[in-house]
């Protein structure tokens, strides 16, 4: 029994090793790039060209295929940052803190894309690019949380203190994610209610390209995190022999 529980935890320990991750991810990346490029190209063609216009919004509905995936990742990104923070604090796993730091600017970028495409979409459909409703305000708070995390982390000269302090902010700020998600249900907002998770809200010929784009954005997010995490490893493990051997090779 001890043996089986050990093997089920092996991936956890392997992920905790910067060396293992640095070497393995070099092999994953070309595959990930290939799959992502194909999926993204197909998804963009399908959603921006081959999918139908909306009965009310016409062509501006196509902004949805960028806006919704970016919004999903902006929230998932923050949650994964918070999970990394908990693992880092409890198990003192340095890889977890590195991942947490790698995610932050990418999550901020996806949040910015969400806000920007939302404004672009709001102008022709609602008649305004911004309203202080609960959904938009809480998504803006998410951007500030990401930026606050980055600022807090870089304000310490001691890396351990930086990791731990920023981790607490990541965990506390995670409260905002369910608020963003629930905002359109708890309050009345200019922003429309759930449609991705609601059955029958989106016609199948629009839902398929949307799901493809969501998948492509997940992969894109993963690639960007892996690349940044590798840089973070180079940064922090610069003095270790395995890395010097790896880089001079």
């Amino acid at each position, binding site marked *: 029994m001890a043996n089986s529980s050990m093997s089920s935890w092996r991936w956890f320990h392997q992920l905790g090793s910067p060396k293992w991750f640095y070497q393995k991810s070099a092999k994953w990346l070309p595959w990930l790039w290939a799959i992502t490029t194909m999926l993204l190209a197909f998804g963009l063609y399908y959603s921006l060209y081959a999918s139908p216009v909306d009965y009310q919004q016409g062509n501006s509905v196509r902004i949805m295929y960028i806006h919704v995936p970016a919004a999903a990742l902006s929230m998932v990104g923050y949650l994964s940052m918070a999970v990394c923070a908990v693992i880092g604090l409890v198990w003192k796993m340095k890889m977890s803190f590195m991942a947490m730091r790698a995610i932050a600017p990418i999550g901020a970028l996806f949040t910015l894309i969400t806000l920007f495409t939302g404004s672009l979409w709001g102008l022709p459909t609602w008649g305004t690019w911004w*309203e202080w409703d609960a959904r938009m305000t809480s998504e803006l708070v998410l951007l500030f949380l990401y930026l606050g995390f980055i600022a807090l982390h870089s304000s310490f000269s001691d890396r351990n203190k930086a990791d731990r302090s920023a981790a607490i902010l990541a965990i506390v700020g995670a409260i905002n994610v369910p608020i963003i998600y629930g905002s359109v249900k708890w309050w009345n907002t200019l922003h429309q209610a759930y449609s991705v998770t609601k059955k029958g809200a989106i016609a199948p010929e629009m839902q398929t390209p949307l799901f493809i784009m969501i998948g492509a954005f997940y992969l894109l997010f993963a690639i960007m995190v892996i690349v940044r995490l590798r840089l973070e490893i180079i940064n922090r493990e610069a003095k270790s022999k395995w890395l010097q051997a790896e880089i001079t090779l």
Partner: protein
Amino acid sequence: MKAHRKKKLITILSSLVLLSTAVGLLLYAIGDYADAFYEPSRVVNGDAPLNKTIRVGGLVTTGSVKRAKDSLYVEFDITDNQEVITITFDKSLPDLFREGQGIMAEGKLVDSKTLKATKVLAKHDEKYMPPEIAETLKKSHKDGVKKMEQQGEKQKGSY
């Protein structure tokens, strides 16, 4: 799990629970104040202040839109399926403004049932579909209503 890790995890999780409770209570206290607009029934109930810029939202009642012939002036009713209030507006309406669709209007209440709007925004619903399907749905809905009416008449006749 080692004892000190377990302790740390419990500390983190229990502070998260406490924090969520605090934020939950805070959001509960904020309640309606975080709403983007008043529904017509709350306006009619007198919850919304007179002569102060507020926002109201609801569905445009079918057949209520009256446009002036020589200006942009327009009058229409909105409803939350409970109460109805009238909106007056003298600028151009957004493209998605339609009868039966949601809108949000900003302006001042003239009386408890009329709002003089300075801004009207269209609020689109969470449904997305191609025009052909919308057309088919509309048609089958009409046909269904017709059928029901015919059946109703038949039933009446058989009495």
